[in-house]
């Protein structure tokens, strides 16, 4: 029943006056409701890809492109970024660069995108209230956005994107500058949004989180997608190290101590998988040791 929401068709891109292409023949699809993770080393083209998905490339950045990106049946080159933002939202790394700098309060900040779209003032209130509850920023609504912590501002940025009711949310390392508590709060919200049906495309460095949340993982290197599939397919690939990506720590650890026979699986990618694997190991040991005792 899933339909294709994003279609990246052999897309290449080079920034103006650069000697290297930033994206090279990138080709993949994202289905409606999917949680897609994009991983890769620094400078591999992940951010460029995010900017291309939301239409900032080619509409905001200056450069040359080839191929096309179709988001919800709209060609990103043919519509403005503003129009596209009703379909696809973006949250990126630096929280303080995601404020409009025109608002005195968080409520005004959330209203900024609605105002640009001409949403009547009366409708703004109910929308702001609804989104503030969802993103857990209701107690911040009267505060000055410039006086909040990074984690709080990032939640405001997330809310400002979500309030435009996009079908897809692109997250470009949106927790990198946050402390562990702040980033956990953001990730919980993102998980909830995905459960509510919003398609997620997330660039992340936390491999365990990727393994836990993503339905599909793409590895990108030198602007090209070099590997793609389910988290298990990707992280168990023997070529992973060639693409400067490491699997989650659990994978390395469990791979080392799991001997054949312990369990049907011989690896774990996430904490919960590791726990259940460990329980199986303990059960196995118990079973095999009792008769001797």
């Amino acid at each position, binding site marked *: 029943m899933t339909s294709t929401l994003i279609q990246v068709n052999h897309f290449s891109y080079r920034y103006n006056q650069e000697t290297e292409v930033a994206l090279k023949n990138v080709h993949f699809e994202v289905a409606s409701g999917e949680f897609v993770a994009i991983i890769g080393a620094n400078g591999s083209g992940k951010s460029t890809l995010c900017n291309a998905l939301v239409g900032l490339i080619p509409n905001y950045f200056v450069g040359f492109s080839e191929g096309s990106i179709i988001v919800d049946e709209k060609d990103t080159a043919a519509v403005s970024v503003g129009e596209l933002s009703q379909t696809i939202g973006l949250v990126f790394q630096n929280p303080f660069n995601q404020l409009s700098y025109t608002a005195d309060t968080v409520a005004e900040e959330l209203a900024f995108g*609605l105002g640009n779209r001409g949403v009547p003032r009366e409708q703004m209130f109910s929308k702001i209230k609804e989104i503030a509850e969802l993103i857990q920023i209701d107690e911040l609504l009267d505060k000055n956005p410039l006086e909040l912590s990074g984690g709080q501002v990032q939640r405001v940025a997330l809310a400002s994107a979500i309030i435009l009711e996009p079908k897809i949310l692109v997250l470009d390392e949106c927790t990198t500058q946050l402390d562990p508590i702040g980033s956990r709060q953001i990730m919980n919200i993102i998980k909830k949004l995905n459960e509510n049906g919003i398609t997620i495309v997330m660039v992340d460095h936390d491999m365990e989180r990727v393994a836990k949340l993503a339905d599909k993982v793409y590895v990108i290197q030198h602007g090209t997608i070099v590997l793609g599939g389910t988290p298990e397919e990707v992280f168990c690939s023997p070529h992973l190290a060639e693409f400067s990506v490491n699997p989650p720590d659990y994978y390395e650890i469990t791979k080392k101590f799991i001997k054949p026979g312990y369990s049907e699986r011989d690896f774990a990618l996430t904490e919960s998988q590791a726990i259940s694997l460990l329980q199986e190991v303990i059960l196995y040991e118990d079973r095999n040791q009792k008769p001797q005792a």
Partner: protein
Amino acid sequence: MENINNSIAVLVRKLNPITKLLIVFCLGIGCLIYPLPFVGYGVLCLLVILGILIGQGKQVLKLIVGFGIPVTLMLLFIQGLYSPNNKTMIADFGFAQMGLEGTMYALKISSTLLIFLAAFYLMLQTTKNSETVAALTQSGLNMKLGYLILASLNVVPQMQRKVKVIQEAQESRGVETSGSFIQRTKAFLPLIGPVVLSSLTDAQERGMTLETRGFGISGDKPTSYIKVETTGLDIVLRMIAICFLISSLLPRIL
């Protein structure tokens, strides 16, 4: 903005920012047009009284004394003693004579300046900048200009704080901020370089944010979260302001 909540302060604060702007403009220009400077000083007294009523008296007086008196003295010196229009001499200082025409001109300019200064100050103290911009955009100011005013007001203090933090860090690390001119320049330049360059990349990302929030998309007429009302009092005050401007023109025409 101080929170003085007597009824007059509340009333002034509730006025439409456009009304306040119009009053500032009409008072200033009106006094400039009117041939004699005394109207200006009369208006200035009224502004001081208004300032006192809304709890800003001290600040307004400080502004007038701190800026107004030096400027007036300077203008009296330049225009009063050396204006080429001086014909009627009213005083002789030995090295120069004081002319009536130049003196009147100096007084008029200083009174106009002070009216603008005091009226504008009172307006700023009783109006949120975001309200002013919302009122202006709702009456047709380009969105982009509105953005520029508000963003500058928010971004600049942030950058100044950044520079101050670095400056303090430099000082605590013992970097010379005193000493010869060359020394001081050498200490300061590496300090602002990184702030300038990082701010530029920040600007690029902020532009991305504006775009993805649909800033400036054509087609829809933008709306604002801030409500700006035009009450009966606004209309009356606007009429009075315009009447004042017109009546100051009369002696020139008649």
